């Protein structure tokens, strides 16, 4: 089943157009990467199905159904959880409260507070401190834990490696591979190409708001990467 599909999507902030005719599809169990330089519109793909950027022409389907008018809760209720760029941890809430916030959609599944704490024990230890008192890596774990609390069918990761030390990125990569192994689909937006190669199977290359190339990561050459991504 298709979890998320864009068909010929144009997307805008106010009157400024960012996405131009973007199409892609993510099915159950797939691990897809979106690649591209800074500012090409990768985050805007996410913002469009979250209703933050507005959909012009085109169609978005969530969990196989046309999105209709996108509300702020539409994607979450369709089983799509986002780990946003910059993590967006809420400092006014404790670590535990940030996690509980993630379970707002009340979807059935195996993820509970206890399981998230087992996955990232540091979060259990620091559950009562403010969410933003954590280090960058810990905040990323919190953002991932918060997204898992919704028991998503599709987990969207927007530049999860940004600002993190290589050892932490490796640790997160292990987590992503494990999640994929358990059947969670992944949409990975990344510029850290070795992370992408470990986690994703297929990719779409964005340039100036349009998909310019798609394929499997096995076929993606360094030559192509150099053309579209700063390495």
């Amino acid at each position, binding site marked *: 089943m298709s979890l998320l599909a864009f068909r010929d999507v144009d997307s805008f902030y106010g009157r400024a157009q960012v996405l131009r005719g973007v199409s892609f599809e993510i099915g159950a169990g797939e691990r897809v990467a979106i690649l591209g330089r800074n500012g090409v519109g990768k985050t805007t793909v996410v913002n469009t199905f979250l209703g933050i950027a507005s959909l012009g022409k085109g169609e978005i389907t969530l969990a196989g159904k046309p999105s209709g008018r996108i509300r*702020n809760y539409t994607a979450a209720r369709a089983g799509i959880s986002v780990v946003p760029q910059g993590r*967006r941890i*809420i*400092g006014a809430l404790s670590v535990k*409260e940030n996690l509980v*916030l*993630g379970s707002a959609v009340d979807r059935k599944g195996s993820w509970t507070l206890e399981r998230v704490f087992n996955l990232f024990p540091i979060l259990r230890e620091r559950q009562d401190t403010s969410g933003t008192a954590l280090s960058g890596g810990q905040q990323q774990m919190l953002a991932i834990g918060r997204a898992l609390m*919704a028991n998503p069918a599709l987990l969207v990761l927007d530049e999860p490696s940004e600002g993190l030390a290589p050892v932490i990125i490796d640790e997160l990569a292990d987590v992503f591979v494990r999640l994929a192994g358990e059947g969670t689909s992944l949409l990975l937006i990344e510029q850290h190409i070795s992370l992408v190669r470990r986690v994703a199977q297929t990719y779409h290359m964005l340039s100036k708001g349009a998909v310019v190339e798609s394929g499997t990561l096995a076929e993606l050459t360094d030559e192509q990467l150099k053309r579209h991504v700063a390495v």
Partner: protein
Amino acid sequence: MLIHVLNGLVYGGLLYLVAVGLVLIFGLRQVVNFAHGSLFMLGAYVAYATIAIAGFWIGLLAAAIVLALLGLLLDRTVFRQLQDQDPIVTVLVTFGLLLVLEDFVRTVWGRDNLTVAVPQLLQGTVDIAGASFPIYRLFVIAAAAVIGAGLTIWLKTSRVGLYVRAFAADPVTTGMQGVDTERVSASVVAVGAGLAGLSGAIASPLLALSPAMGGSILIESFIVVVVGGFGSFSGAFVAALVIGQLQNFGIVFVPSIASMVPFLLMMAILIYRPEGLAGKAS
């Protein structure tokens, strides 16, 4: 002396209940509600009308419920539309709303002052440290404390309370977790308006009811919100108690400048500590 402190608590408690509604509506809708004092006034009138038919306690309940429902209606028709508007627009619209509500009350109940009797159960006085103090005033202090504590517990421990705090801090992130933020905002505006109505009803036996009675409580609760640090619940709590005391001791000891004291405090806070009493220094 103790009597003055208690009187300060009566006023501070009522101020807190009104100010906390302003904080809630500002926190979730980014709307500074100039009509908030009118909701207090309307609560007193709804209580007046209901008490005549059904007694005091039903009157309090009716004021809270009617004003909460009005809050829902206002949220849908006014506040939601205003949330992304220029602050000057929200000021003008909610000020207009204030005038409309005052006119409405004037049309229905007339411009003469009305009074509400203290309920039988709470009439009389008690001796406190050698002076007599009205039982009803003690009830007001207790009611404000219970309602304030209930609100705090609701915000800190309930799921909706969690959404409210999250939304006030970061609406976009809260929305993407699947929280129906429109619904949360609407219920919070209803709670804020209901509290204003309830405090108007509770205050009604202490005040002469007139369509303009919302004016001074509005201004003083604005001062509370500013002094407390815009958007802070605990700050508003401390500020309401401080201003209640200042107001009361001012009237007792320096009557000629008493009404200025809260304004002076607000100006001092804005100039020397603009983040408010509870805010973090930046």
